[in-house]
């Protein structure tokens, strides 16, 4: 019923006021109707309009560009963005008025430095770009292909159809680069299996929002869908059913689809907790719990007292390191429950022999440090959940710590960065915690650097991740639950810290949301209203 005091007319009034303000204020919130999202670093729009015609417009490469016609990333991107710009409008008739003046005939793309065309995106990828829209040829310049991808997305957001259906774009000049280099989405394919189609659709939506890391929390207690070549029994016994698996082909498909969109795939194989499903296919891996003298039949975390554990983890991570090309592996380390360890007499013996006595934190650290070393020996770097740091485990300075506990998270950020470690922020962005109303505003208002610390410390915040844990999420409801709520996080991580106006964000995000719907992403509404093209219409 009437939940808000601001009715339809109030909202229109606000919009009218904002429109007049926008006409006067330079830069940032210019033309909210365009719905640029996330807002680029610098936007200069001129009132001069150029027209594009689907038959007479092309995306092309500068002959002097470092990336040539063989660059698959760019060729695929040109096709994709041409479709995003013109494709969905096929149902409409052609423009009723023909403009012979001021056409935009081409967008010429130029990659200035090393192209990285066949490479995978990384934490140090250069995503900056400069876009100059002038008739008849616009120019998109970037240092690397990754910047071109970001620039193409922005370019596609500048084009709109006027009331006669003519494709139009303002003469404009945009320079842009992200505030944080790590902007991720976490998906959980253990609590519920997610179809490959859902994962690929998520990657599409991520690219529209300039996200660049897919944190794939691929296995956990409930199921083990990852098909390991070295240990096939892990998924044979651990997946929900034989069809609830990700084959090596599936995984390759996801990684390549992501690469073409400038998105890194960060795999997480969480241990020693959250591993119940591993035990089904790997006997002896998990700690047997004891009920007095006898095993109870239940199992706890991975057994840190056995050499066989580390042989297994070594061989397992050797495979994982080859399958996933990213330079980082997330090894988890969260929520280790010592209850089972406490009951097991072999564990007790082991701890005594090592001098840990009753300190299970030391046992946990022992395990974590060994696994981190295993990963390091594969020449990969590690990301861990904050418990690993909180436990005072010995970790490399370069190990990234992901802060997820909501209570006092800025203080945690201060502690981690003071100790010299890079940080990823997730605590305020647990998107699986749904609530009634416009919770995107809460996500948008988060300040990732709102903690007491030096400049150096603040620079250690690499970015953050919106997490969509899977207890209540699967392919039926993932997309509307993620979008456009995650878009709020996307802008917070990309745009300048001064981009804060919630009203301006609302106006742009509603346009951006309708754009996602038009492109086939079932992004749910922010509030009352409509899109010209509703989903499924």
């Amino acid at each position: 019923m009437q939940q808000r005091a601001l009715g339809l007319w109030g909202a229109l009034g606000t919009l009218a006021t904002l429109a007049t303000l926008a006409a006067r204020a330079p830069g940032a919130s210019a033309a909210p109707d365009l719905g640029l999202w996330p807002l680029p670093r610098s936007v200069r729009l001129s009132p001069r309009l150029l027209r594009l015609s689907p038959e007479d417009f092309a995306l092309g490469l500068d002959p002097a560009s470092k990336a040539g016609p063989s660059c698959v990333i760019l060729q695929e991107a040109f096709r994709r963005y041409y479709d995003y710009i013109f494709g969905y409008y096929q149902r409409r008739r052609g423009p009723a008025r023909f403009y012979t003046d001021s056409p935009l005939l081409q967008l010429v793309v130029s990659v200035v430095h090393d192209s990285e065309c066949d490479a995978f995106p990384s934490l140090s990828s250069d995503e900056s770009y400069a876009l100059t829209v002038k008739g008849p040829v616009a120019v998109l310049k970037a240092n690397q292909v990754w910047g071109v991808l970001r620039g193409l997305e922005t370019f596609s957001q500048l084009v709109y159809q006027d009331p006669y259906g003519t494709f139009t774009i303002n003469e404009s000049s945009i320079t842009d680069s992200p505030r944080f280099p790590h902007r991720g989405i976490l998906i959980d394919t253990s609590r519920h299996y997610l179809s490959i189609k859902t994962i690929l659709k998520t990657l599409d939506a991520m690219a529209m929002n300039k996200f660049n890391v897919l944190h794939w929390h691929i296995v956990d207690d409930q199921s083990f869908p990852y098909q390991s070549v070295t240990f096939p029994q892990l998924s044979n016994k651990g997946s929900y059913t034989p069809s609830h698996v990700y084959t090596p082909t599936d995984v390759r498909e996801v990684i390549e689809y992501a690469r073409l969109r400038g998105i890194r795939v960060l795999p997480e194989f969480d241990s020693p907790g959250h591993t119940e499903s591993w035990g089904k296919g790997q006997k002896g891996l998990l700690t047997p719990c004891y009920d007095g003298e006898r095993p109870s039949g239940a199992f706890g975390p991975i057994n840190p007292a056995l050499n066989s554990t580390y042989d297994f983890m070594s061989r397992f991570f050797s495979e994982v390191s080859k399958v996933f090309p990213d330079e980082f592996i997330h090894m988890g380390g969260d929520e280790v429950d010592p209850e089972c360890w406490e009951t097991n007499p072999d564990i007790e013996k082991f701890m005594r022999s090592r001098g840990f006595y009753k300190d299970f934190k030391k046992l946990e650290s022992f395990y974590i440090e060994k696994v981190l070393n295993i990963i390091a020996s594969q020449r990969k770097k590690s990301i861990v959940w904050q418990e690993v740091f909180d436990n005072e485990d010995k970790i490399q300075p370069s190990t990234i710590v992901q802060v997820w506990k909501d209570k006092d998270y800025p203080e945690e950020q201060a502690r981690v960065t003071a100790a010299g470690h890079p940080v990823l922020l997730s605590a305020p962005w647990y998107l699986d915690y749904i609530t009634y109303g416009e919770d995107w505003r809460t996500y948008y208002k988060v300040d990732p650097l709102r903690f007491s610390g030096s400049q150096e410390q603040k620079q250690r915040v690499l970015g953050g991740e919106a997490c969509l844990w899977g207890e209540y999420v699967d392919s039926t409801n993932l997309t509307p639950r993620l979008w456009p709520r995650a878009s709020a996080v996307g802008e917070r991580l990309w745009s300048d810290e001064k981009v804060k106006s919630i009203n301006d964000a609302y106006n742009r995000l509603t346009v951006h949301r309708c754009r996602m719907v038009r492109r086939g992403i079932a992004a749910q509404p922010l509030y009352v209203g409509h899109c010209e093209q509703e989903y499924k219409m």
Partner: protein
Amino acid sequence: MHRERCVGLGLPTASCWPLWPWGSEGALCPDTVPCNPQYFINKTEIQDFPRFPHRGLLLDTSRHFLPVSTILDTLDTMAYNKLNVLHWHVVDDPSFPYESLTFPQLTRKGAYNPITHVYTTQDVKDVIEYARLRGIRVLAEFDTPGHTQSWGPGVPGLLTSCYSGSQPSGTFGPVNPILNSTYEFMDTFFLEVSAAFPDFYLHLGGDEVDFTCWLLDIVSTYDKGYVVWQEVFDNKVKIQPDTIVQVWREEVPVPYLKELELITAAGLRALLSAPWYLNRISYGPDWQAAYKVEPLAFEGTAEQKALVIGGEACMWGEYVDSTNLVPRLWPRASAVAERLWSASQVADLDFASSRLARFRCELLRRGVQAEPIGVGYCNEEFDHW
């Protein structure tokens, strides 16, 4: 190898070969083997009847337009759940998508887009017939005198002009009760609506604004009964004894069970919606809260309790459209459906949980994008987008 696959899918091995699951996607049927799904049913005898006669679902097509296909799909799923009333809250403040033949300007000026975001006369007929074939009534709601902002542009003078000092402020309030033109408009409009919707009942709204009784007089001349929101009763408006009162407020002016008690004590029939506002989402298995509701847990005689004719799950549209309606509705509304159909003793949460999880998988198999209620899986997951 086929045998192992069958085992993985939970089918009995004895009857496994050449048995394939009913999934006709062919993913598990290699080309070399004929795909011959076999179905089984246990010899069974069931006798059944509903506990309450009015088991409804409210859809709001004003805050967001819902394509007709979405409405029809909802009717299908309602039928799977034995829900039998579609309460169509068709217009409200933000938009007027109903195509009125007597006042076409209502639609032209009030719809979000009068070409694309409209329910034509044919659309309405299609919905009503589709529902009828499934044993579902369509209870239309034209909510007045509040919630009528979208009526204003098409009928100048209908809404009360607000004043700022001595000048009109440019904003409008509810329907203006002091003009003759208002009565004439309502008379004609509700004549049209009464004809367009064949159900005996019309929902007249009356929520959140002091209701005036004249509208009820008008409507009663069309041989219709009416349903109103509880404010009409709370504000002691004089209403016919055959009025149905819909309870939607959880705590105000009294807790909803108390409200049911008061309404039935006055000899009026009641519908319960207050604890079933499914648009109010929260983290976790909130279907359990909906399931635990006991509509007759108030002090009253058996006669009184018989006046509670059922209830409705409400899916208000502020944050809902065709991108997220289906997973938000199902299977949470199924909890309400069982509460309204099954005997009151059917209340065990564990029993409900395991049946609901399986029922949800069955909904998926039928193409309904019902969301999960907890960790787990279905043999055939949703995968059409």
